[in-house]
């Protein structure tokens, strides 16, 4: 296979997961779309094709995607942090509980540092292993594990606090 053919195979293998990654994080506004950012990811990947670690292509590409997204946000002049578009899924006992869960998760994720949230979401949504997480975050495996652990601890604390708050809140307003 030529170098171009190998790159094409790599792109086809990972584009769907990259597009999913980007759609999860791209807010869909502005002049660009997740597809545009994917194109930029592939440009960088081609430029650094020889540097992509064998067997760890996916997390390496996620790392590039993360930076391309950051560039995209800067270019668009949108300084807001990642807006996580939460959508409840699965069986929910009630609309109220579902709403509370969404609210708790939204505020819990928002309370995390950007880097912690990225570690958590890469693990939960992209399903990266600790080794892959390290590559995707551009840090050591140990540091990645610590970051993920911190994120989980913080999120759990936030969820617990929300739960406590909802228990202590009156169900109905007095007239």
């Amino acid at each position, binding site marked *: 296979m030529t170098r171009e053919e190998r790159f094409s195979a790599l792109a086809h293998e990972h584009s769907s997961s990259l597009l999913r990654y980007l*759609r999860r994080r791209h807010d869909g506004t502005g002049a660009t779309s997740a597809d*545009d950012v994917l*194109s930029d990811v592939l*440009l960088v990947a081609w430029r650094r094709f020889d540097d992509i670690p064998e067997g760890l292509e996916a997390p390496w590409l996620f790392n590039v995607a993360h930076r391309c997204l950051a560039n995209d946000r800067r270019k668009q002049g949108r*300084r807001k*942090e990642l807006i996580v578009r939460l959508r409840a899924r699965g069986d929910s006992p009630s609309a109220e509980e579902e709403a509370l869960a969404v609210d708790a998760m939204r505020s819990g994720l928002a309370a995390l540092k950007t*880097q912690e949230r990225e570690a958590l979401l890469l693990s*939960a949504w992209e399903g990266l292993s600790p080794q892959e997480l390290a590559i995707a975050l551009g840090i050591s495996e140990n540091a990645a594990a610590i970051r993920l652990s911190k994120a989980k601890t913080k999120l759990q604390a936030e969820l617990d606090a929300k739960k406590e708050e909802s228990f202590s809140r009156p169900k109905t307003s007095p007239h």
Partner: protein
Amino acid sequence: MDELHETDPLLSKVQAFDPEPDPVVANSFAVDRMVRNATSMPNPSIWTRGRYAATASVASLGSAAAVIALIVGLGSVGPELPVLAIGGTPKVGASGDAALAPGASTTVPSMGMMRLYRSYTFTTSPDLVVVGGGSGSHQLTASSDPATLLDHLASVFHVTGMRDATNGNYMISGTNGSYVQVWKDGGILRWDYQPESSMATDGGVAPGDVGGVASAPGDVVTTPATTETTVPPAPTAPVLSSDQAISDARAVLDQVGGFGDLGNAQVQSLDTGGDYVTFSLMVDGLATDLTTSVDYNPDGSFSASGFDAQVGGLVPYPTISATDAISQLSTTQGVSGGPIMGEPVAPMPGAVGGTADTTTTAPEQTPPALEVSINKATMGLQTYTLANGETWLLPVWLLEGPITDPSATNGDNAGDFSQTVIGVSSEYVKIAVSPIAY
């Protein structure tokens, strides 16, 4: 990788809130096109505003629907002036011309897949205004090696931490999430600095800091690299005035140094607060697409990016006139068989899909061409990376004019067109354009 977390209830909860729970399948054709676009660039660089401008320029010579277009008669080239072999094809993007023509409408297609684009016909307006002309070309070279520049930037921005030079990307990552990175872009270096996240609660970059070391305005602090650095004046959080942002940005960039004549700043105030300050390198009195920027957050922290490029002596490549550049727009259409394309259009009747999405299918009908009357031509300088790895500043014509849509019933202006065309005589330019078909 998605089958996981059955034993981790917390991650399972997070997974349940996945905004894209269903598998996404990228359109194979779309990926093919992206691959062709990427691999047509022997030495592509990371996305920057300058890159957008530069790549958009290439689009004007070889359209997106081109084949490998090798221009040039080698025999006609003067012995003292080698052919400039530009090994790139357009990185077409919706904001391709933004750097040179703020506010102008989109003139080249987005990379969104399977859209139907409007084509153009070009004419020269009798009221054509020509600004500049006859500029020379300059080779650009880095003044230092990546590692040295990285050390310098880490010192300026006070980033200390893990060093990584394994992926062709020279980077120092701070423990607080800040980092500086340097990478080669052809014959020059580019760099980027990011502070700790503005959401961080510990050790963040405070207003007035350079690189997160809190100091009072005017203080002198000793950096880890044992150099002394004067901290620039503190921004006035939460939102800087434009003048203050420019002043602060200049102070930051002065510490980095080595930029040459940066000219006047452009400030973009962001609706979410903060300011984005950009300077363009000035060469021969012309603004170039080599930009450096300081991007202030509402909390006063900032990120920055720039370049290391020394401008070589003037090389007198012959240039084309503005009218020749305009005619080249049309010639390109004829030669390459694919027009410079405009905005994506709405799906036509009977079409399937038609939105900017890799998962949709293209409409089947072609709308009438848009008519452009070029009424302004401005010469500037843009960076190009040659096939041999050299980076050059080449003259370009920025061509602008109103667009008329002949199919519109009200005859209103359909927007403003702007496109750059390489100003060097085509016999000295060789462009490789990949076989991209929209």
